[in-house]
């Protein structure tokens, strides 16, 4: 369902140009639980950004459900990210002024889901991540693990086809990290949602069904 064809990505860093990706081709199938591994600076984040339509490749093609994302306008990409792709971030990135409930609700507000349906979906999602009791808490009243659970609920509430998680466990202790991966795996199985997560932690990658190792902007295995 997601395909990269000979994708390169260059960044300008001051005077120099950094080649973050140097010709990546890969194909991720529906329902996969994929891990992208590699040391920091290897191009994992860049790869995930391209998969999530947050950025455009310098050359090559990104195909999402057989469609070239380069053909989409910015507003169409926004809609695509809203209802087809879910994001989980390393530092959780919850909206600090909103409660857990409101954070999870936010993507549904963008997609203008009806109020009654919206409330039901959010409540069900919070229940699935085990945070029903924390619905009225703001992010700064939650632990790191809880925040990441809220983020997972937010990523999945729109019932997306794919969830992208960039180093989802890097800011968590290893026990909590394993819990988060367990939760993601469970979601992958329950919802048949494709998961792609990046990590540099060898212990975590064991959860994945497919592992791509990336080094110096190339997939090495």
């Amino acid at each position, binding site marked *: 369902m997601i395909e990269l064809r000979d994708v390169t990505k260059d960044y300008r860093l001051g005077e120099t140009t950094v080649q973050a990706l140097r010709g990546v081709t890969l194909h991720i199938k529906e329902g996969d639980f994929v891990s992208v591994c590699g040391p920091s600076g290897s191009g994992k984040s860049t790869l995930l*950004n391209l998969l*999530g339509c*947050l*950025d455009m490749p310098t050359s090559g093609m990104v195909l999402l459900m057989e469609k070239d994302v380069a053909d989409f306008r*910015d*507003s169409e990409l*926004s*809609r695509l*990210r*809203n*209802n087809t792709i*879910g*994001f989980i*971030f390393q*530092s959780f*990135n919850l*909206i*600090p*002024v*909103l409660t857990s409930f409101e954070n999870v609700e*936010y*993507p549904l*507000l*963008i*997609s203008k889901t009806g109020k009654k349906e919206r409330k039901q979906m959010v409540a069900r999602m919070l229940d699935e991540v085990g945070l029903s009791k924390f619905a009225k808490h703001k992010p700064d009243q939650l632990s790191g693990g809880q925040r990441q659970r809220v983020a997972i609920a*937010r990523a999945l509430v729109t019932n997306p086809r794919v969830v992208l998680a960039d180093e989802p466990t890097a800011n968590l202790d290893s026990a909590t990290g394993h819990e988060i991966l367990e939760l993601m795996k469970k979601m992958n199985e329950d919802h048949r949602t494709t998961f792609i997560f990046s990590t540099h932690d060898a212990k975590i990658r064991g959860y994945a069904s497919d592992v791509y190792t990336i080094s110096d902007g190339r997939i090495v295995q």
Partner: protein
Amino acid sequence: MNTLILAIKNIFKNRRRTVITFLAITSGMTGLIVFGGYMEFTFMGLRESTIRTQLGHVQVAKKGYFEKGLANPGKYLIRESESVERVLARMPEVKLVTSRLTFSGLISTGERTLSCKGFGINVAEESAGDMNTFETVVDGQQLDESTGPGDGVVGVELMKALGAKVGDYLTLLTTTIDGTMNALEFKVVGVAETGSKEYDSVFVKLPLPFVKRLVNCNAVEKFMVLLNDTDDLGKATKRINGLLATDLQGMEYRTWSELADFYLKVERLYRGIFDIIIFIVGVIVLFSIANTITMSVFERTREIGTLRAIGTTRLGTMRLFLTEGILIGIIGGIIGVVVGIMVAYAINFSGGIYVPPPPGQNRGYLAMVLIVPQVILYAFASIVGVSALSSLYPSFKASRLKIVEALHHI
């Protein structure tokens, strides 16, 4: 609705910054309301004094008088004055109708002679209808029922120049309607001041019959109509328009505003100054809100990246920050209106602001601050407009951030 709630939450997240922004807006608004109210008070005072000492609300005269009458008043005299007066006095809005017959000539103590402008008034009507409210008698008394047919009131500066005092007999010298010289003596019963130095150094006020005798003609130049309330002017002129076709044929009228050149110039000047002050306050508010929103965008760059990643459009992002800026303007503006009105009341309660004599005047006065809804609305609308304007650019910048860069912003 959802944007609005999020904007409110964000505004009150950084309380200190928001409060400082509110303070800037509130002090600006208070300044505008107090100055605007003071300005309106000045207009009102000047308007009423112009109407009551010099013009009346409406003046009625023979057709052509207002254009050419000054050079040749004899040609436009109203001889059927009693019937015209009766018609005007019947209108329900009218408080008082009086007539004027003016002359210019010389005034003399016998030793010293100066030029003067004299006018005859209907003593009984005018003293009953407070036509002289704004003319203060500084020595002696005003013309009223107790004064005689040969008594007059003279401007304070003119009296000084003549070296005369109350009780003296002065001689007036002028040409009559038919061009011969005539002189009459009158007794000074009062010295008065209007606040205008120029006017105080020429005017002589006398009973109408005395002036009629002096210029040897039994007519008047014009009628001055004083209304119960300046706000009734529209109704009154409508009625007079109707009368011009019937009872007042061959006559025309002017409203006070068409005659009060000085007042209109002062009003225009003040309104110009007020706009400049609004502009200055606007610039301060502009920078204040622009700073707040820019800081907010900068601090929340990663949040913007997140919002964009989960599907917020560029327009939605822009709308969020724009809403915050406008809300700050609206809330600050409302606080400003409340505080401004309170300050205005406090000033009025403490007795007003002492204003030294304006140029050409010899009396200072205590200014009050009028609470005028139009002024407050004007100031409020300007501030809200400015707040929208000042958050436009930072909001636009926020909507154009590159998502990937925004997400990695620390």
